[in-house]
């Protein structure tokens, strides 16, 4: 049991850092502008991340599994650990951190070490989605911004009522965003452990059936929730306005646009519906919520005429998107070498 927990710990640590970093994308502006109290935000975020992870987490993690099926628990431990260390290092450098890219880099590192050929189709699908998702987010944000601006300016709602509607909106959209984050990103946290999962299917209270994968996701979701409660406030307060100062209403648009994007790339239901209608489905791929948020912010900046954007910081963030998977892959390779040859653990079958 202790051994299992030890090997899962890197995934739990990755989950913790995902929660610590990404809660700011969802509730950051709401908390910093004091529209919502941190504890309220953290509670909603945690609950809906866990629900999203358990209910809808399988789709995106399946794609990661196709990229590289890490088949030993110790190997999975190293992959998750290397990704987590890369994420932490980037966080210390003050950049919004794409956990998705760290884990993909780490999986490819494992593929190189175990001499498993990387599934190129999956890789193209994943990289293509990374490029497309911020663009999609920007488009949604652009449209939503104009829509909401029109509604607010023409509806003659009193400022006080607008304030309470905005708060309610931030909570609802935040809950949706948290669900999408859980659904889309739990694969990053626990996906590598699926093939070597030590759990069995269980039944809670006689009616709630959880598969071993869902149980894994539940534990990962709890780790994310712990990250949200223990460290995300610090990230929210230090990252602050990031590349663009957001008002509560624009924050609502940003979170909604990026949450829709994450949801589209995680929803099995939508995927199946589009297939049944003979329409091209969205690939189920873990997408970086940070990238989606940056895309949304760019969409709003364009809607406002392209002013006030901190291009220097944007450039620094973009560089992080490239260096993260590379650094993660190299770190994984080195760590796997140590695990196999120094600690004498089989990292692949």
């Amino acid at each position, binding site marked *: 049991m202790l051994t299992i927990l030890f090997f899962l710990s890197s995934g739990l640590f990755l989950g913790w850092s995902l929660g610590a970093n990404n809660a700011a994308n969802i509730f950051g502006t709401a908390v910093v502008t004091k529209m919502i109290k941190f504890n309220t935000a953290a509670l909603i975020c945690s609950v809906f991340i866990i629900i999203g992870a358990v209910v809808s987490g399988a789709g995106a993690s399946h794609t990661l599994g196709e990229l590289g099926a890490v088949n030993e628990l110790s190997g999975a431990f190293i992959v998750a650990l290397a990704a987590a260390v890369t994420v932490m290092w980037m966080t210390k450098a003050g950049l919004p951190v794409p956990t998705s890219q760290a884990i993909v880099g780490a999986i490819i590192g494992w593929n190189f070490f175990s001499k498993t050929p990387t599934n190129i189709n999956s890789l193209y699908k994943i990289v293509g989605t990374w490029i497309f998702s911020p663009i999609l987010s920007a488009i949604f944000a652009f449209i939503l911004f104009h829509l909401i601006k029109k509604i*607010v300016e023409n509806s003659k709602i009193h*400022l006080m009522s607008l304030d*309470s*509607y905005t708060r*309610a909106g931030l909570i609802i959209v935040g809950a949706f965003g948290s669900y999408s984050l859980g659904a889309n990103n739990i694969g990053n946290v626990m996906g590598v452990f699926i093939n070597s999962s030590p759990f069995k299917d269980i039944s809670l209270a006689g009616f709630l059936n959880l598969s071993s994968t869902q149980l894994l996701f539940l534990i990962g979701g709890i780790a994310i929730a712990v990250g949200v409660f223990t460290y995300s406030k610090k990230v929210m307060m230090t990252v602050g306005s990031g590349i663009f100062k957001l008002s509560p209403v624009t924050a609502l648009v940003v979170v909604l646009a990026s949450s829709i994007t994450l949801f589209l790339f995680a929803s099995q239901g939508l995927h199946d519906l589009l297939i049944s209608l003979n329409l091209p489905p969205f690939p189920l791929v873990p997408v970086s919520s940070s990238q989606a948020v940056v895309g949304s912010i760019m969409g709003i900046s364009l809607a406002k005429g392209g002013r006030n954007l901190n291009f220097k910081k944007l450039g620094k963030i973009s560089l992080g998107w490239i260096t993260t998977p590379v650094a993660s892959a190299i770190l994984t390779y080195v760590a796997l070498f140590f695990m196999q040859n120094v600690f004498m653990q089989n990292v692949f079958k």
Partner: protein
Amino acid sequence: MPKFFNSKSKQLEGEIDGYLDRVSTAGLIFQEGVKAYVNGKKDKFERTFIDISTLESDADNVRRDIKHKLYTYMLIPESRGDVLGLLETLDDIVDICEKVLEQFSIETPNIPEFLKSDFLELAELSSKTVEEVVKGARAFFREIGMVSEYVNKVHFYEHEADDVEEHLKRNAFNSKKIESFSQKVHMRYFAEKIALVSDVSESVAERLSVYAIKRRI
């Protein structure tokens, strides 16, 4: 929308609207007060002076209550500073209206017949600036796009008031119908005091236009 979500907001909406009503009323009472004094209706003038004094302390209480509630319930965190700033500067208008009528009550200026129409016109223009700036403040809360229209009207009426003020002062000093220099100075003093109401309204309007720009989504 669940009741608990916006009952405090709705309450404050009502209070803010009520406060703006009081500022608007102060402008109207001010005009009526000057009119009553100029036309020699002393009893009516005294009543308006009492009314505006009561209104001024009532408006202060409402404003303090709004401020207290905004901070206690942590409402409109992004706009709170601007909203409270706006309400405070609007309070300056109520204060100046009360002070001018008080000066009339204390100093009882002797207004000659040939200057009466100018005084009435000046009071009317100052009252109009108050009316338009309050409309601008209401638009700030509900229809941000309309603020600039009302601000322009305030500028227009303030400019008109400046012209009437100058005309009144020149008339007072050039006319042989006022013999004593002290009475000419007294007329000048009260012309400036009445015009000051429009000046204060204009400075509120300028701050209002900045707040409106900041509030735009």
